[in-house]
């Protein structure tokens, strides 16, 4: 059993999510419906996208402290420019992705610590967001709103979206050739350089992908909330990091899992709901979120540790 969990790292996040979901359904049977599941998970969709974005950065051994501010900025752009002047909006979003790639190149070129550069960028993104929307507002483009509230047959939107995101990023990162090389950069950049790869471009590519998923995250968020503000997603920075780790990723060494990251994001979203169903005293509601984070990660530890002892 332990072997099984160790060789298939993805099993543990899956099982944690399933257990948490079962407990949630037990406490709140109303949630066990098409409608209920959608309510439980639809706000996890932008979190999942942000987590995938963070995963791209962690994959190349960096960490992105600006992601929350970036998603907020994207949300502001989406609710203003993309709504009012779609062409300009698309151009700005594309520009943001290019900027992200540029940051990756900058970090590699000057061998800068990503943690500081992204910390600095969080101020830059935040400043831009405040300039675009000094006060909350804007509106989601109609097509985006209908996309995020679509009601597909059988499975609710949130589940369909999660499966799509997980599947596509898995193909991109875990299966494709270029994804393999990108993970190689995280595993041993020297060997990738020696094999003749332009690591500068690879790094820019990884950051560009992060920017791309960050843009998707911000857009999905506005589609759900219908409007934006400059601070709307600041929390995504830490949530996305926690999501990658919950999903079986590691901070160094290019060990990430696309499916795991999406599941990690869903687990985090569900954990918060689970707690609110428990109706704790308001004093302890915040602390309980910390406790549940510890709990879920401890399960992961038990299996990885046993595995190490056995091998």
């Amino acid at each position: 059993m332990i072997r099984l969990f160790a060789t298939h790292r993805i099993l543990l996040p899956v099982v944690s999510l399933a257990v948490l979901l079962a407990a949630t359904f037990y406490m709140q049977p109303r949630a066990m419906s098409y409608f209920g599941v959608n309510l439980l998970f639809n706000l996890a969709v932008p979190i999942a996208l942000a987590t995938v974005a963070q995963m791209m950065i962690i994959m190349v051994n960096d960490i992105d402290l600006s992601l929350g501010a970036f998603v907020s900025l994207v949300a502001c752009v989406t609710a203003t420019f993309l709504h009012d002047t779609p062409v300009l909006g698309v151009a700005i979003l594309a520009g943001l992705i290019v900027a992200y790639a540029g940051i990756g190149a900058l970090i590699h070129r000057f061998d800068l610590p990503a943690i500081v550069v992204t910390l600095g960028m969080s101020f830059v993104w935040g400043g831009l967001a405040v300039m675009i929307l000094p006060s909350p507002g804007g509106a989601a483009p109609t097509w985006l709103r209908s996309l995020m509230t679509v009601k597909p047959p059988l499975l609710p939107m949130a589940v369909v979206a999660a499966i799509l995101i997980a599947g596509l990023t898995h193909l991109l990162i875990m299966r494709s050739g270029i994804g393999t090389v990108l993970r190689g950069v995280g595993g041993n950049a020297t060997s990738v350089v020696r094999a003749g790869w332009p690591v500068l471009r690879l790094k820019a590519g990884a950051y560009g992908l992060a920017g791309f998923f960050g843009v998707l995250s911000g857009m999905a968020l506005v589609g759900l909330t219908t409007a934006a503000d400059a601070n709307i997603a600041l929390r995504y920075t830490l949530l996305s990091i926690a999501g990658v780790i919950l999903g079986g990723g590691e901070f160094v060494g290019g060990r990430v899992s696309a499916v795991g990251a999406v599941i990690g994001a869903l687990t985090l979203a569900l954990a918060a709901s689970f707690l609110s169903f428990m109706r704790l005293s308001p004093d302890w509601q915040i602390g309980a979120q910390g406790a549940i984070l510890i709990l879920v990660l401890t399960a992961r530890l038990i299996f990885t540790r046993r595995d190490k002892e056995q091998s």
Partner: protein
Amino acid sequence: MQSAFQNGTPIVALNHAEKHFGAVRALDGVSLSIAPGECIGLVGHNGAGKSTLVNLINGGLAPTGGSVTFPASGESRALSAGVRSVFQELSLCPNLSVAENLRISHSDLKGAGWRKKARAEIIQSLDAVFPDHGIGADTSVDRLTIAERQMVEIAIGFAPRGRDARLVILDEPTSSLDAGIAQQLLAHIRQFCADGGAVIFISHMMGEIFDVASNIIVMKDGKIVANKPTSQFSRASLVEAMGHVGVKNSKAAVRRQASDFGEEVLKSKDGLTARRGEIIGLAGLAGHGQAEALARLYFSNTSSWRMGKASNMVFVAGDRGRDGVLPLWSILRNMTVSILPQTARRGLVDRDAEKRTAADWKTRIGIRTDDVDNPILSLSGGNQQKVLFARALASHASIIIMDDPMRGVDVGTKQDVYDMIQTEAATGRTFLWYSTETEEVCQCDRVFVFRDGKISAELTGDDITEDRILEASFEMQEASA
């Protein structure tokens, strides 16, 4: 082979190539050309410039002066000229599978179904070099032993990768392989050269060099001091060319008896025992649990919470990058890190005592540097290893654990270290010594042979021979066959 050397257009040609690191002339005007079919054995003391030469050829370093060209292919980059390198430090991506690692080196492996092709290619190459390797193409590299990783890396070096390899450079490829696997590699190299490929083979093991090389190049202090067909060297003349004087023939002093040692000072759960003043060898095929047993022993006898003034046990790492070197520090700080509490007063480092110790050991163990305040990474691999030895020997610890510590150490230094170990043992220090080289193990007073993570034999006295060790290493396989 001789004729190929004379005729073919060189794959690579160096013309007065130089490489300086600040004041250090790592490579001091080297001219050399390598033709198809040649198998060059490259030897030299630690820090002679072998790895630097290799890095100049494969493009990892740009020459400070002179030129490196690839006449046979007319290409300007080593990779496109068909030059492959297997590096001294392992350079696989541990998070990727064996097949995925091939993908990193083989950039043309694109499109749908590339995994299938990659799997086939790496397995084919592994089969060709190391029959019965037992490595799966989808195994993640971090689950392989160090020897298996080395094998994968060598196999990637020889794999077709879309364009056949013309020149494969192997920088100490056998340092973590056991004798049997190393023989398979040597056989493959011979075949590869016979088929028109060229190889540069770097090793500190003279036997291997004589076994495989058609030509031997001797380097010393950044220069080529000899470049002749192998047949024109004898063991003695080669060692002399490398500049080692007074290398004694390894017939050491008379074998010591059980009565020469003190009381039992160590008894591990794995069954390892040691007496005071004894040198214990750990042998067996690489990756059969020797290193792990030593690590366990060390971890369970030392604390990660307390450190007394006199720790009883010290560790000499063989895998320097992972287990030994503190890369940001100077040679001095690396050397003294374990002995600080011995001289400290009220928790403050005694910096004069530290300087004295470093200067003392620099000369005693012969570290090639002009200043112990230089960064540790400015030393060649073998010299870094000497620093780790000094770190352990300078301590007051009575038990010294050595995890294949001679990896990459040159012949002359090895001899110095052997002598030092003998002397220290005579003063009552106990050594536990794991080595992949049977020759080294044979110098021990008692030997434990490992198989499948367990001790399969304990040899003493005249039983300590290469044959008996090999026998114990394979015992179980024969029994089950």
